[in-house]
């Protein structure tokens, strides 16, 4: 029989019925919908018609349903990249691993002075910047972590030795005690206020 010609009304009805159904239907259920019609032949013809298409009519445990063709499954899931900034905690963790590697979780916490949630480390591993490089041979054999080549390339570093040392950080003002920096800001504020006063 030719599939090309218009399908007969019973086939069309079975097709629509299965399409609109919210769950797979048995032959009997379909038949009930269609005033008791015998639907076996129609199902077989539909299954054949759809065999080559993007949608299949399949039987699973006596129940019929449409589903998309398995070879097209990859098209129905699309990946999208979303750029996200590292959180403050994750940035600190990353810096500690970079300066102190290889380093265990307990050591990281000792350096950070606060507990580290496990999600934070996961984020760094997902980003591909930190990986586990074995276990420290101490009681408990904790995992130890180090940075990856991707870490170096993301931050444009030739090697870990390119990370600025503590003295350099100090010189750049990055290690200035907070209250000192604050005082300085306040002092300069007052100066500018005075400037305004005298001019008025």
């Amino acid at each position, binding site marked *: 029989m030719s599939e090309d010609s218009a399908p007969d009304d019973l086939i069309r009805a079975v097709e*629509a019925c299965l*399409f*609109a*159904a*919210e*769950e797979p239907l048995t032959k009997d259920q379909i038949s009930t919908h269609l005033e008791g019609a015998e639907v076996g032949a129609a199902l077989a013809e539909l299954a054949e018609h759809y065999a080559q298409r993007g949608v299949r009519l399949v039987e699973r445990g006596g129940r019929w*349903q*449409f*589903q*998309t063709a398995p070879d097209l499954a990859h098209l*129905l*899931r*699309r*990946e*999208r*990249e*979303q*750029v*996200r*900034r*590292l959180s*403050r905690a*994750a*940035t*600190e963790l*990353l*810096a*500690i691993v*970079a*300066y102190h590697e290889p380093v265990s979780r307990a050591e990281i916490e000792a*350096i*950070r*002075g606060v507990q580290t949630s496990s999600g934070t480390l996961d*984020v760094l591993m*997902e*980003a591909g*910047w930190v990986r586990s490089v074995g276990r420290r041979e101490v009681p408990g054999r904790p995992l130890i972590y180090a940075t990856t080549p991707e870490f170096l390339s*993301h*931050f*444009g570093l030739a090697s870990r030795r390119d*990370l*600025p040392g*503590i003295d350099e*950080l100090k010189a750049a003002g*990055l*290690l200035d*005690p*907070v209250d000192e920096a604050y005082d300085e800001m306040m*002092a300069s504020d*007052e*100066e500018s206020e*005075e400037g305004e006063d005298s001019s008025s």
Partner: protein
Amino acid sequence: MNEEGAATTATADGDWAGPAAAPAHNEDALYLELDGWEGPLDLLLDLARRQKVDLKAISILELVDQYIAYIEQAEALKLEIAADYLVMASWLAYLKSALLLPREEQEDPSPEELALRLQLRLQRLGAMREAAARLMAGDRLGRDVFARGAPEGLRVLTKSAWTCDWYDLINAYGQVKLRNQPVVHMVRERPVMSLDAAIERVAAMLGVTRDWLELRSMLPAHADPRLKRSALASSFVAALELARTGRAELRQEATFGPIHLRRMAS
């Protein structure tokens, strides 16, 4: 039960499918339920349709008579009639008398214009009624046609591309180091003006004149900003002290306004 006052016109499947005249086709049992109409215009349209002619050809005079008769009958039955129905009735009565007057006594706008405008309104409302009915009679999704019952769904998986810049990384490390450094507090020597010095200074300046002086004008002019702050605080306390001991009087005209002081007459 009365769904938006329109239950009387709703068809069995719940969609409104015809003009408001539906319950009133039996002309003998004049239908006196004003709730069934959405307002005077609605009632007028219904009455106009009962003339069974094209809305373009309705007789306005006849329509006016029907409307007024209808309202009068409702009044006779002591039904409560909303004000807008009565306003329409009196306007229509006016329109009718104007239409019947000899032409030369008519004012502007002419009753013909008013009648024509009313007819145009009824046509427009009637057109929308019919359009609505046709719209509702079309193939509606979920009633006549159906979407796929159990679609697999198209999924979009979001993958995070993490980013962080060099400065943030280094700065974070700096902050960590800082947080865990042993804290050493050092109080550095700062230029200050002591209270005694301030009392002496303010008293001396007050001794020069009997005029009011502003407190701020008494501060050392070219001092280090930190000394200036100290001097302001100390001079203020000094002023209070001088006032307390009866050597000066203070005046401030507004909250946070300048503080003036002068020597007490001895």
